[in-house]
């Protein structure tokens, strides 16, 4: 047999070689092989999609809805999205020109970046943040610039902190609140300051608001593009994965000005063509009749949030009260471990899986992300196990 010596790695695109595989899957194999593992590492709802949504999709299939749709998505769905934003936040999105239905926020994020970035453009990304932000930036030819958020500030970001990382190459600010992994939210006041900053430096703001409906503790989610003058310069991303427990359906959307939306649609039409029609039908049902189910799930997350926050506080781990998404981000430095070792040792000793904070950016070090999208019983049991671990394994 002829020996081949091709260095396949060198044949890959430099963009791909520049990004590291997601740190989040590191413990996946160990955890997956354990019988009695309790996972607080899951970034998706434990609920199954509400039945009425599933049923509407089944009905659609039976009636033969199996074709492509318009590139931008079914007109009814876009109308419903526009209506929802008008009613809820007072936005004025035009279903014909400003909305693109995508295969999850994941696709929307990717094509938003590809639509607006030129090689070498810098993107300000507050960290800790969702694992895809840097990778999508790099793959689109941009340069991710991390802006560490501070725990003293409950992981909110301020214009002063952004300003420190601003250069003449900065074109985009990418924010994601309520935040994965910290559970932080931004108040209207916080966001107004960011809006001023964006205006002053003429930045496009990509706002990933996929957890917007999951906001608790008497707080109201503030939609960034609903702030004065912000609709035009914002690419707003949202989807059905989290609020409606529809992760596997792969359906999301972007809201942006007609020029940007047309540009994103161009990429979408050549690379994705359209989002699956089955998922679009389900999403339509979610918007039309799904709010009551969503509210019920939100109320349940809220109770779990308070239980887990109470649990961590009582065992003496420093942590701020998360107000959004379904994550809590306790500080584990008092145990003597770094995030990675803590997560690994905890998994081995007590069979509880969580994700080291460092997977979400360097400033996440010293923290771990715990998802409370799991049953109360499992949360209670996990809290007992974590407390045991801390007692017996303090370094």
């Amino acid at each position, binding site marked *: 047999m002829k020996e081949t010596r091709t260095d396949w790695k060198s044949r890959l695109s430099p963009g791909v070689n520049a990004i590291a595989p997601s740190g989040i899957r590191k*413990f*996946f194999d160990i955890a997956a092989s354990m019988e009695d593992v309790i996972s607080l590492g899951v970034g998706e709802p434990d609920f199954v999609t509400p039945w009425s949504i599933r049923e509407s999709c089944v009905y659609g299939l039976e009636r033969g809805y199996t074709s492509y749709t318009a590139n931008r998505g079914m007109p009814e769905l876009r109308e419903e999205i526009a209506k929802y934003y008008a009613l809820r936040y007072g936005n004025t999105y035009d279903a014909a020109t400003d909305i693109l239905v995508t295969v999850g926020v994941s696709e929307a994020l990717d094509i938003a970046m590809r639509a607006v970035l030129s090689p070498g453009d810098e993107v300000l990304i507050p960290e800790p943040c969702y694992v895809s932000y840097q990778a999508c930036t790099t793959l689109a030819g941009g340069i991710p610039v991390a802006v560490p958020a501070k725990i003293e500030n409950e992981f909110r970001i301020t214009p002063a902190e952004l300003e420190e990382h601003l250069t003449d190459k900065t074109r985009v600010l990418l924010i994601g609140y309520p935040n994965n992994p910290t559970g932080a939210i931004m108040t209207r006041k916080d966001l107004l300051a960011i809006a001023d900053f964006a205006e002053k430096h003429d930045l496009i703001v990509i706002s990933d608001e996929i957890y917007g409906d999951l906001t608790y503790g008497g707080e109201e989610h503030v939609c960034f593009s609903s702030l004065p003058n912000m609709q035009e310069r914002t690419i707003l991303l949202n989807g059905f994965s989290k609020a409606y427990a529809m992760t596997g359906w792969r359906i999301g959307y972007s809201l942006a000005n007609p020029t940007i939306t047309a540009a994103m649609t161009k990429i979408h039409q050549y690379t994705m063509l359209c989002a699956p029609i089955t998922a679009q039908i389900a999403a339509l049902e979610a918007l039309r009749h799904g709010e009551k189910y969503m509210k019920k799930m939100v109320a349940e997350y809220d*109770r779990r949030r308070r239980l887990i926050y109470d649990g961590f506080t009582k065992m003496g781990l420093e942590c701020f009260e998360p107000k959004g998404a379904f994550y809590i981000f306790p500080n584990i430095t008092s145990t003597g471990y770094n995030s990675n070792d803590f997560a690994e040792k905890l998994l081995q000793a007590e069979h509880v899986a969580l994700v080291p904070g460092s997977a979400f950016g360097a400033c996440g070090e010293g923290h771990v992300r715990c998802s409370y999208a799991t049953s109360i019983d499992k949360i209670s049991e996990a809290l007992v196990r974590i407390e045991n671990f801390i007692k017996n394994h303090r370094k």
Partner: protein
Amino acid sequence: MRELLELLEHDSRRPVSDLAAMLNRSEYEVEKQLKELEKSKIILSYNTLINWEKFGDDTVTAIIEINLTPQREVGFDAIAERIYRFDEVRTVYLMSGSFDLLVIIEGKSLKDVANFVATRLSTIEGVTATRSHFMLKPYKKDGVIIHDEERDRRLVVSP
């Protein structure tokens, strides 16, 4: 209060400490509210939903529609009371429509239940007709799906 009731309706064994944390109140407050709710009969009892069939019991459940002649002054209430006092009777509802009372009965066997209906229920003064329906298979009871096949299919760790 409503939230506390909803939590208990779902699981009445939750420790007060958990309830307090979930509701963002002190344990003392929750205890006090529970006492009040019990006293005012808003909380009627703390039951456990048991799948007796799975345990091995072969009980028979029947739904009986009953027609009544209402009585002067007390209407249906007096007859309803005569019926709901029987231990065999699990549930009694006054209904609108083509019959008046819906009664759910549990017995050891078909014969047992038929016997009860014939000798105890139909003979009550004011009962003009009964129609029995025997339950064959329960699918969902009090909001709980009996054989729920939905399980956690998620990956152990995801972004």
